């Protein structure tokens, strides 16, 4: 490898920082996929993968994805929740991979809640 300059060091830093961003969840938008047995049976796995794929495609830096268990509303599964920093948490119902992609584009990026899929808001 050739010798680094200060500029190149900065580039490595920026790239590496995105790689370890999952380790500092403070101040980041949070998407939670409900992955109870009911959720998984309704296709939450595929939804989760679609979300991860969309985050990668759009190179979103400020979003973390976690999972949670069943919240007792099994009928509406797959359920995901989106909480942008400083705004209330929004629960979405029947989130297919397609809907998930739309929620990311519309809510996570542009901050507009996808009203027709909302299950409840905080």
């Amino acid at each position: 490898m050739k010798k680094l300059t200060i500029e190149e060091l900065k580039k490595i830093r920026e790239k590496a920082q995105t790689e370890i961003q999952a380790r500092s969840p403070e101040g980041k938008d949070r998407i939670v996929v409900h992955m109870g047995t009911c959720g998984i049976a309704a296709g939450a796995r595929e939804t989760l993968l679609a979300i991860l794929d969309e985050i990668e495609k759009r190179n979103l830096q400020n979003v973390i994805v976690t999972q949670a268990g069943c919240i007792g509303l099994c009928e509406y599964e797959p359920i995901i929740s989106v909480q942008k920093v400083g705004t209330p948490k929004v629960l979405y119902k029947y989130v297919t991979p397609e809907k998930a992609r739309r929620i990311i584009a519309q809510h996570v990026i542009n901050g507009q809640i996808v009203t027709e899929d909302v299950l409840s808001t905080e």
Partner: protein
Amino acid sequence: MPERAHILICAGAACISAGEESFKSALEKELKEAKIYEEVKIIETGCFGTCDLGPVMVIYPEGIFYIRLKPQDARDIVNEHLLKGRVVERLLVREPELKIFLPTINELPFFKNQVRIALRNVGFIDPLNIEEYIAREGYSALGKVLTEMTPEEVIEEVKKSGLRGRGGAGFPTGIKWELGRKAKGDEKYIICNADEGDPGAFMDRSILEGDPHSVIEGMLIGAYAIGAKKGFVYIRAEYPLAIKRLTYALEQAKSYGLLGENILGTNFSFDIEIRIGAGAFVCGEETALIASVEGKRGMPRPRPPFPVNSGLWNKPTVINNVETWANIPEIILKGADWFSSLGTEKSKGTKVFALAGKINMTGLIEVPMGITLREIVYDIGGGIPEGRKFKAVQIGGPAGGCIPAEYLDTPVDYESITSLGAIMGSGGLIVMDEDNCMVDVAKFFLSFTQDESCGKCVPCRVGTKRMLEILDKITKGDGEIRDLEELEDLANVIKNTSLCGLGKGAPNPVLTTLKYFRDEYIAHIKDKKCPAKSCIALIHYEVIREKCRKCSICFKNCPVGAIFKDYDGTYVINQEKCTKCGICFQICPFKVIKKE
């Protein structure tokens, strides 16, 4: 793609010996079976510091902290936590008093009350991946000094920060660098002292295992400041993992052009070599260390000349300890004012301590200077196990001393600790409870220094031996009251006339215990009793006859056949045969054997 979850497994030496490797392979297998191996990232980090709870790991982004992991736990973690988002409660830390679970790493009092500067990355990054270090602002400080600061400005900043040597003596680092810069010589050297030898201390090892680049960067900055082209890390062969990770880090730094010629495109060049020591305690003393690096027998020489003027191959040499080097990049990045805002008037910043002995959370912590011993022992260390009574804390290793309970509220800084007769040392902190005999503790530390004495000067070679003989006599019940005077006389002579710090510090454990626990010495000498019931020659076991239930368990378990059945069926211990192993005392189901 950036993985959705990061699993940080502690791969410090303690967790590895507790089975970290087999857990990790079980985890990988389960992740593959669940088909989520690609979605998560496993990172083996340096020591978290919670060595008592190992193997441990943290799962981010939630920050859930799992402890005492076994390979069979991997399935639950993958299927419950990583797949379904359900925290596996049985593997969490349990708050003993409140009986509640503490799921995340930030909730633990152990971590909550720490301030991490030297340990900023230890347990948070992969020590084998230079890019993770760079992501945490690594090598930014180097970039800053090479492009924006003159060597004099660097020295001024370090001086202003108030950083003092973390290896033990507490000499101001900036002043040492200034002397090194001003020293006359065509060639100058930088040395990192990683010859950590205090019993129970392992902070330097953990930094080198968990964040080797912070030490490399610190040395680079120091080299720029004093004008050195070559550096050495002197590390003991007993630290194979630290050597392995440091070697790897040095190679990585070289391949990125952060070591070698024209670093970061400037005309600054510097290189580091490792020198492996055989593990002699005296080689932590700087002149002995230099002799050892030169390939000679590791023995100290009188100072002056000091190494800053005439050190390695008689050239000006600046030696600092691992922890000191690790602090440097942060001081440069965040500024001297930030650093000196932490700590007390004369002791700035933080200090890493290794907690050991009779304390609930043994392990590694970093706290601001000026914190009290009580906060360390109770708030961070979780107090003494089984509700026993705190007796003393031995601080500073074999050259340190014992501080008794009445000084628990002493702020921890160089001056306060020294005024009590102990030293800050490298930060070994051994907690003792009522079951520890202080005469025996003094004997333990003295036998260590006596063993490690290089033999060059008479006071240390002969004096410590004589002191040890007296202590041995006292613990065997043969002591006389005038022995105490002789101990003190010898101690003062050794302290004042020894050649190096090893001899000068060797009497400290005896002197402090004589000062604070003189009554225990007197009990050993006059009453022939060991108040802590620890010195074997002064205790004996006896069956309380009227309470004996004649179950014969003691009789069956005595390894030397010293217990016999008497005419009435009760059991009796033959004192002549008894080796005082204590098995009968522990095993008696009715607790009718007494220890006196």
